[in-house]
């Protein structure tokens, strides 16, 4: 009997999420009346709650325990709060961005609950804290106009934090990513991403003369080098690409972009030859089944999960996502695809893409260069991170050890993504005021 419920709800959830995804793109097209737009966004919000409810109904049907109900109420309450905050405190915020943020958070919380209830609870607690902390961010962005002058503050803070990890950090999975403060593990590169975008934006907004560009590039290169030394290659890539994109748009010179890209490629090849762990990742990418006993194990398990799940998924609690190492963090996409289905997973990619497009849209419409570049930079940070994590999980590219923002477990990642979204909201409010 419970199998029947699981089976039917699978199809229902896919249908609901497909509708949600379609609405994301439909709402991006701004050529409709405000009322129409509002109705679509309202429907979207309802869909978020329906999908979330569906998932927990299934999980309750399978587990039949009380903590399922408790978790559901807690999570639904949080989602409500977020929506209420943005509706009543930040009236001119982008409802679409809030919807997407809630949808991704809801998916993250529900799949984490299925994978590991303790981690789900911790993630929930951090989410609550993040919502409270980031309450102030849109206000800061909107009202504090001196932020563009703090270029060197951002740079110094960023480099100091990254250097701290490189020196003091604890090694996990072959890379130095985090250190412990008062018993909590912090991954500073997640926050430095935002500081770095602010730095680059303020430098390039001031001037795009060669001297300025050279200074900015030197500092950017320093960030990347420290990350490479810490073996946090995923973050290094994100920083590198974000800087290139911001540089290209600020200077309007394809020369910088192309030469940057070429030197990046050269550096990648050099990294491949120099670093063993790069070679390991690449060999796992090329033929994981042949190295399944060592470096290919994680990717193989991920592909077993995705393949066996097929297009419609196995259903919640019916698969074996816990066989994938680090499934709650970097490889959460595989768990989503295995149990909720390939169609659901593709829709998830598309929702992330629509977020990215939304950020870019905001960037395009802001007049002021500094804010424009921030929106662009944050959008690139977000979009590229999604590409790296989903690509690594599906063996599209070698895996690089980054998480899926808002979905993966990870306090620093969650908080920094909340900050990122809040900054975007601040910029959106600014733009609304500009026009």
């Amino acid at each position: 009997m419970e199998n029947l419920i699981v089976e039917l709800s699978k199809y229902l959830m896919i249908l609901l999420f497909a509708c949600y995804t379609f609405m994301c793109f439909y709402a991006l097209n701004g050529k409709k009346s405000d009322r129409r737009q509002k109705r679509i966004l309202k429907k979207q919000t309802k869909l978020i709650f329906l999908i979330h409810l569906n998932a927990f109904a299934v999980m309750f049907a399978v587990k039949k325990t009380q903590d399922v109900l408790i978790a559901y109420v807690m999570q639904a309450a949080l989602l409500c709060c977020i929506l209420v905050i943005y509706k009543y405190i930040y009236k001119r915020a982008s409802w679409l961005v809030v919807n997407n943020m809630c949808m991704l958070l809801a998916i993250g919380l529900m799949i984490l609950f299925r994978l590991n209830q303790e981690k789900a609870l911790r993630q929930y607690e951090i989410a609550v804290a993040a919502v409270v902390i980031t309450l102030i961010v849109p206000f800061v962005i909107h009202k504090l106009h001196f932020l563009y002058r703090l270029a060197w503050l951002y740079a110094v803070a960023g480099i100091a934090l990254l250097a701290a990890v490189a020196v003091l950090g604890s090694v996990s999975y072959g890379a130095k990513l985090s250190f412990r403060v008062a018993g909590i593990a912090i991954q500073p590169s997640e926050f430095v991403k935002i500081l770095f975008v602010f730095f680059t934006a303020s430098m390039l907004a001031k001037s795009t003369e060669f001297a300025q560009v050279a200074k900015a590039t030197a500092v950017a290169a320093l960030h990347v080098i420290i990350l490479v030394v810490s073996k946090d290659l995923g973050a290094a890539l994100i920083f590198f690409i974000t800087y290139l994109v911001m540089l290209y748009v600020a200077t309007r010179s394809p020369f910088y972009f192309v030469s940057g890209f070429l030197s990046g490629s050269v550096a990648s090849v050099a990294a491949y030859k120099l670093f063993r762990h790069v070679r390991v990742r690449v060999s796992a990418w090329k033929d994981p089944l042949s190295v399944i006993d060592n470096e290919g194990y994680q990717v193989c398990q991920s592909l077993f999960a995705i393949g066996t799940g097929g297009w419609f998924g196995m259903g919640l609690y019916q698969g074996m996502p816990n066989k994938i190492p680090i499934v709650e963090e970097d490889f959460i996409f595989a768990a989503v695809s295995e149990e909720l289905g390939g169609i659901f997973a593709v829709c998830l990619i598309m929702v992330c893409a629509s977020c990215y497009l939304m950020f870019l849209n905001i960037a395009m419409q802001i007049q002021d260069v500094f804010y424009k570049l921030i929106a662009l930079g944050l959008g690139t940070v977000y979009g590229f991170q999604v590409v790296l994590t989903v690509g690594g999980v599906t063996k599209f590219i070698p895996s690089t050890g980054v998480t899926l923002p808002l979905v993966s477990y990870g306090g620093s990642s969650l908080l920094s993504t909340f900050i990122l979204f809040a900054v975007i909201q601040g910029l959106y409010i600014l733009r609304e005021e500009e026009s």
Partner: protein
Amino acid sequence: MMKKDWKRTDPEQLEERRRKKDAKKFWNEQAGETANTVRNREFAVVAYLFLAVFLGMIAYFTYFQVEKSEAFINSPYNARQDAFADRIRRGDIVTAQKEVIATTKTAKDGTESRSYPYGRLFAHAAGFSTNGKAGLESIGNFQLLRSHAFFLEKILNELKDQKNIGDTLVTTLDLRVQQAAYDALAGNQGAVIAMQPSTGKILAMVSKPDFDPNTIAADWESITAQSSSSVLVNRVTQGLYPPGSTFKIFTLLEYMKENRSYKQYGYQCSGSITKDGNAIRCFGNAVHGQEDLQSAFAHSCNASFSEIGLSLDLDRFAKTNEALLFNKKLPCEFPYKQSSFPLASGASSWEVMQTSIGQGKTLVTPYHLALVMCAIANDGILMKPYIVDRVENHDGVEVTVNEPETYKELLTPKKSKTLQQYLRAVVTEGTATALNVPGYTAAGKTGSAEFTSAKDSHAWFVGYASKEGVPDLAVSVIVEGAGTGGAYAVPAAKAVFDAYFGS
């Protein structure tokens, strides 16, 4: 393009902009382009680049699900498959004529066990599913644990909390042919495989020594404890043997390729040939006298073929053999071993002579030679071998069908037809005349592969037979340590052909 020098917006400018809001809006609508949109080209480039990457990722994901996921799903390392068994009753494996060779029996208390009605007859082909998986139980594991029963039936089962019944694997195996092959090997060790060259279907696969799949779980300890026991090895695909005189097919092919005037070949056989102090003798001390290429091949003259071998360009010989799948991956659904041809230029004359007659370091599997025979019989084109014809749900409704597929052209049609002629000569005037019967037209090559210095030999026969109105059948037979190919392997092949052609 003029680069505008954008100044920072401070509150005053913001106010001014708000005042100019309406004017700007009007200007936007009229001109369609503001100073702001001038920068949009770079945004567009960046946006399109990223979108291209996103789409590429989605496309790859789709490609994976459609094409490559099968290999990963079926991987024996994938633990998820066993979880299916909780909800599905493992399906049946049947022959092409629907005789059941593997099924699941449910005891009164609900425990399930796997039963093999024909016991040892299909031991290696059907395999087993306890203690790991082998044979068809492994190849079709995913399909056997899926149920495509009519959806109402599935819903009813769900409501009654009963297991659904897994799909049925309809194989290409033929009971009569398998039985004939099994009986022909009798108490000897060895392997027999029978395939259809025009489709790639595997009709029979027998390997001895074998095991009783019905008691495999109970016997497991004793089977794996003995270090000399090799009952679990499927000698068809994993048995590596010296090919013996069957290798003369390859030597012949290379000679024809290197010498356009091969039809003018003549040799006076005195029973042996000596080179650099080493002598090769014809089998059984036979003296063949004057022969042309066809009769030398038909009578399996070692002396003549040693001489031919010495005249060959060894690098080209290696290339020809690799085109015929030596040292290469084989299309095979079972675990298998690659055949090896290690001879290269610079080898001693002794090695060359040995190798040309199928001794030396060359090793082949019966499966590989069967593939070569299939290619020759099919005018050079090897069809992809397969053993699962289709999958049906337990009521007989088709789920998926496997169609014959071309694998590769191993040799040209012209060369194939020439080889067909020579292989026929072996049956009409050579070492396999027992196959020269009216019921069908057989062709092939015998082999007696020596494998110890004491001159024991494996008996080989590889070949095919045709009859009007019936698809051809290719066979590969090896009887270990029995004696000559003609005396031991040919009768086995004859039994298989007789069963297939129904004479």
